[in-house]
């Protein structure tokens, strides 16, 4: 089963990392990702640009376009992974490994109902 691992963290905090700290975290995460990729279990991975670049469309009638992320919360959705796991335990293990590489914040683990990989994007 495919699981989405949604990454939540305090954006101000992540934004306070120095370039070196950021690179170090990305490097540690790459180790976990490589392992999953070699096992053929890693789907798309995305790191989102800061929520300041986000726009929200509220589906009212007529729809309203608002600046900023959908929810103003202490922790923001900063990225996601799609990972193939046999069960929730395995998915939690993957999240644990990712969490060890990048402590703080939270991962929301959500089974994927429909997945259309789409074509390659540039």
């Amino acid at each position, binding site marked *: 089963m495919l699981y989405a691992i949604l990454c939540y963290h*305090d954006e101000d905090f992540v*934004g*306070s990392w120095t370039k070196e700290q950021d690179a170090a975290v990305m490097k540690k995460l790459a180790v976990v990702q490589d392992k999953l990729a070699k096992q053929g279990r890693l789907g798309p991975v995305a790191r989102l*640009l*800061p929520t300041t670049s986000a726009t929200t469309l509220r589906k009212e009638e007529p729809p309203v376009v608002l*600046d*900023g992320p959908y929810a103003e919360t202490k922790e923001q959705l900063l990225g996601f992974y799609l990972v193939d796991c046999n069960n929730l335990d395995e998915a939690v293990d993957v999240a644990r490994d990712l969490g060890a590489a990048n402590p*703080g914040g939270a991962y929301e683990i959500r089974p994927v109902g429909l997945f259309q990989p789409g074509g390659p994007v540039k």
Partner: protein
Amino acid sequence: MTDTAWIDAALTSARPQAVGALLRYFRNLDTAEEAFQNACLRALKSWPQNGPPRDPAAWLIMVGRNVAIDEVRRSRRQEPLPEDEAISDLDDAEERLAERLDGSHYRDDILRLLFICCHPELPATQQIALALRIVSGLTVKQIARAFLVSEAAMEQRITRAKARVADGNVPFETPGAVERSERLSAVAAMIYLIFNEGYSAGGDTAEIRSPLCEEAIRLARLLLRLFQSEPEIMGLAALLLLQHARAAARFDADGALVLLDDQDRSLWNQQMIAEGLALIDKAMRHRRSGPYQIQAAIAALHARAARPEETDWTQIDLLYGALEMVQPSPVVTLNRAVAVSKVRGPEAALEMIEPLSSRLSNYFHYFGVRGAFLMQLGRNDEARIAFDRAIALANTSAEAAHIRMHLDRLMRDSAPCNAKAAK
């Protein structure tokens, strides 16, 4: 990341909100800063043992306030020392406090903290130093290094700036819409100054000063997070990102300036460009143009060109025209002339900058640009005069070196002719 690095990052990110709230409580910058310092000391003791609090800023505000109140009591000797019970059971209190820190307070606290640094009587360099000290929390040593002055000189500069700010009336009432927008534009201008201080550095000091650019970007993002729908703040953040994205390509190995046309575009930071383009794109939807957005749009056109030949100079010319209308300045016209030279040729461009000569008679770039136009027109003797003047006015050794390169090229180009003439 090590424990202490984690805590450092948390303290840095919580700082503007925490100091801003403490300033609102105490209405005194020194007390607020001291309270924050004390809270940080407690955090360094408590966080490694008890784990990070859920809301570091709320924790620091709460502890900072309690410790400061303790100190006042202690100095009055009215009550027995209240020790640590005052800050015990923090989890509970943290939650209550977090609830009280409603969005608008939080926004105005940080804006106020930034705004007091923009005190109109403070010279720009003092505004910047003050903001870096109290909002960003850089040490005096770090700031002194970025400004290339001694620590003692910087300490003095910051102390003076603080005294000036303390004398003035810090506005504590919640601002109205008009005041808020005035504060926003003053703060935006100050952030732009911080950036420029880093960006205008020469190749020899660019690396030491680039933290100024990064800090300005962090503050611009922070401001935008607080005021999500302000197109000019989007424009400001976009402008800084798009400019700074080119940092790695702006100087060669010897620290000499590399012009946009000659830069290795593969060195441009694509992630910053992506963020900058996304922000300017977002800002334009508001159809409320302004100087930061226009400048960002110009930077975006450069960023979008994979090769210099692909640059949309016609559009850049139009954008500079728009900028001339909202922010008329001979420097803007000078920049526009560069675009005009690409679209309509150096003759038209030269004609355009001719009227600026008296107002820009001490401006390095004027003579650099003028020399380049004259050189393109083959008017080498006049070009040489302009370049000589530029060198005399250069602000950094990189600027002078760059012009000297042009002069060398002129020499080379004219040498064979002279040799021929001699025969």
